[in-house]
């Protein structure tokens, strides 16, 4: 039995894959805690409220307990979350910690990787993160909560959500000293930020070389710990990022009218319906408008966009509509999340996860001109990217006359001539390397052509 690549930090147990099913082994050192949790109301309540991934006990022996958690379709990582996604994950963690504390348990770690998005909401996925509470002890995972959640969120308020990408290079959270130094001086006037970040950074620096740590006993009452949790919760709840959207209110600024928009929707729906997919991904799907148009035909739908605000908007609408099939997240196709951590496999790359997800249909609407003209990606290389995870691909090609394309070309100024290759013929030639053309149709009222491609079995000529 081999442990999952990401499951080695906690001696309580580990995750493994048993014939395609994700299971969790619990080691004897965690038996007492696990049994106490099973007999308490903690698991029951958190499962019922949809805050903790439900599990069933598969087997019990003297040396191991095996549990099988409810499977989730696709895992996303903190550096792929929009502001609102990050915020909700942080609030969930605090909520669970405060509740656990009231029932004589604690979260022994507060890693952002303990949370993922499942059926439209954040959910806690590390069943073994709970431990017994010892009266009067401070929260051991407090610093981890600051470096994984509170710090990145406060930094994003001042510097934008690009700061979340720092989690890619700091797998155990952004160091407190770095959080403190990156924050504007005025944040020192905030009692919450001063105590939870600046002072924390100072104290950590002061005691980092104190090797007699274990002998020092610090007490913190349950009420005092609850107060910290509640204050952090209230503070995070009010946080908003200060950044302009890349697209703004994109669909009110589109370069085609309502009739053309409706024509595109009708065409898309009919093509997707014919493919009869179970899973779909819309890359560069903005706020999920077109994703929602095909949602009824699929069981699960991923919509990614480069713009955190668009993803936020998608999340809000999806949660309002209780659209449990929809999973939005942030992705820049020109630099998808890499594999990070030990062996670069602890958190897998997006390309790897997409290949495993293997969506039945991939949508790439109004995306290719950005890849080609902003990213300078040759058509064949774009095709190769889509072919790495897609079977059926519905891709929209905006012609040179399209105002977005014209604008992107104009920005090339004296190098504009280098992009003469941007035309239908070259696009088709590039994609023909990996895909068979099923059909193509001009979207009426626009300068755009919609293509349905099917990946060739052997991938390439």
């Amino acid at each position, binding site marked *: 039995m081999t442990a999952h690549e990401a499951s080695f*930090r*906690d*001696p*309580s147990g580990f995750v493994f894959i048993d014939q395609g099913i994700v299971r969790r082994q619990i080691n004897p*050192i*965690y038996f007492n*805690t696990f049994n106490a949790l099973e007999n308490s*109301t903690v698991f029951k*309540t*958190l499962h*019922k*409220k949809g*805050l903790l991934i439900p599990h069933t006990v598969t087997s019990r022996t003297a040396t191991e307990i095996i549990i099988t958690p409810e499977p989730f379709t696709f895992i996303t990582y903190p550096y792929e979350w929009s502001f609102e996604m990050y915020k909700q994950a942080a*609030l969930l963690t*605090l*909520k669970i910690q*405060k*509740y656990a504390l009231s029932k004589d348990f604690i979260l*022994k770690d507060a890693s952002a990787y303990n949370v993922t998005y499942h059926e439209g909401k954040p959910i806690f996925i590390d069943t073994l993160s709970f*431990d*017994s509470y*010892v009266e009067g*002890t*401070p*929260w*051991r*995972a*407090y*610093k*981890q909560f*600051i470096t994984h959640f509170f710090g990145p969120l406060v930094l994003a308020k001042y510097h934008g959500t690009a700061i979340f990408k720092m989690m890619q290079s700091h797998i*155990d959270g952004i160091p407190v000293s770095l959080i403190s130094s990156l924050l504007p001086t005025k944040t020192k006037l905030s*009692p*919450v930020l001063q*105590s*939870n970040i600046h*002072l*924390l950074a*100072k*104290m*950590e*620096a*002061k*005691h*980092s070389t*104190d090797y007699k*740590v274990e002998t*020092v006993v*610090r007490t*913190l*009452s349950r009420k*005092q*710990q609850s*107060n*910290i949790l*509640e*204050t952090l*919760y*209230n503070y995070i*709840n009010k946080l908003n990022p200060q950044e302009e959207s890349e697209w703004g209110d994109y669909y009110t600024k589109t370069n085609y009218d309502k009739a053309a928009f409706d024509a595109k929707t009708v065409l898309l729906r009919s093509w997707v319906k014919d493919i009869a997919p179970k899973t779909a991904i819309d890359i560069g799907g903005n706020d999920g408008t077109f994703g929602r148009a095909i949602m009824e035909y699929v069981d699960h739908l991923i919509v990614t966009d480069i713009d955190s605000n668009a993803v936020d908007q998608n999340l809000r609408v999806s949660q309002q509509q209780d659209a449990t099939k929809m999973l939005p997240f942030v992705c820049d196709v020109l630099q998808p999340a890499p594999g990070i951590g030990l062996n670069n496999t602890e958190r897998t790359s997006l390309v790897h996860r997409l290949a495993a997800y293997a969506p039945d249909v991939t949508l790439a609407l109004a995306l290719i001109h950005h890849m080609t003209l902003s990213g300078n990606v040759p058509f064949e290389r774009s095709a190769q990217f889509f072919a790495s995870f897609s079977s059926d691909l519905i891709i929209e090609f905006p012609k040179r006359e399209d105002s977005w394309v014209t604008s992107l070309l104009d920005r090339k100024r004296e190098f504009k001539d280098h992009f003469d290759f941007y035309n239908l013929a070259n696009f088709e030639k590039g994609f023909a390397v990996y895909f068979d053309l099923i059909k193509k149709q001009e979207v009426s009222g626009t300068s755009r052509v919609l293509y349905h491609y099917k990946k060739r079995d052997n991938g390439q000529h």
Partner: protein
Amino acid sequence: MTSFLLYFDAGLGALIVQGIAAVVAGVVLFSKTAMFKIKLFLGLIKESDLQDSIDIDEDEEEDRKLD
């Protein structure tokens, strides 16, 4: 103590600072509650304006009815 389960360094500074953070939190929460009561008294807000709370509502009774 179940120290074998504490598989990462909690940080001594982080344990000490919680005492201070707790005092700050106490003051922040007290003033928030006080402000809420004043605004409520002046009719500036209603009871229903209470924002999203950290507390998990167990409401067993209601759940049983729904089952």
